[in-house]
């Protein structure tokens, strides 16, 4: 119980330290400046779907 509480407090301290450190970032970029319009993963998934559709349809 005591150890769990200590772990919890340590985790919380770490998080708050991260938030405070993050706040020291002078010019935090906005979400739209960082995220791509479309994730590369989405493009990979679409590409894989197209390739599979082409392959299996041509085998009919």
């Amino acid at each position, binding site marked *: 119980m005591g150890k769990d509480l200590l772990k919890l407090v340590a985790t919380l301290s770490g998080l708050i330290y991260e938030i405070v450190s993050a706040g020291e970032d002078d010019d935090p970029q906005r979400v739209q400046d960082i995220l791509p319009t479309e994730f590369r993963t989405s493009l*990979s998934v679409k590409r894989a779907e197209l390739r599979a559709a082409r392959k299996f349809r041509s085998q009919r």
Partner: protein
Amino acid sequence: MARTSDLAFLAWAQRLAWVSALGGAMLALVGCGGPPSEIQSALSITSRALVVVDEELSPRADAAGLECEDSSETLAEWRGCFRGWKTADAALTNAGRALRLAQLARDGWEQGSDSGSFFAAVPCLLVALEELAEGLEGLGVEIPEEITGALGLIGALGGGSCDG
């Protein structure tokens, strides 16, 4: 002479006092005027975490598509094999959407709206990040520490339920 357990308790008590003071300071910041800069930083850090995940997942999704082609006889089989990647991709896209909504709500707060829309967006962002972590876990992909950190940061901003 102090015993080890006394010293540990002292360290714990000091840390608890520090955490309480910082927590109180953050709440005080939230209480006056527009959004504190820590909120924009948390959104930026979470965005960067999604970019890390994207860079990690994209080549793996390409490879998985080809592996599924080799192990499948039909398109239906291929879809079954590839399902986990579709789920992870949907979770990543959803997390990106939730982040953009949180940014809009934060901007509205900065421009004079109350903080309600932002704090209503936070639980949905948290759910989206949790679903992304589950999606990665389902694929056997190690959850990057950036995502664990983002979950902690966004979780620290608030809880509650994601309605709509």
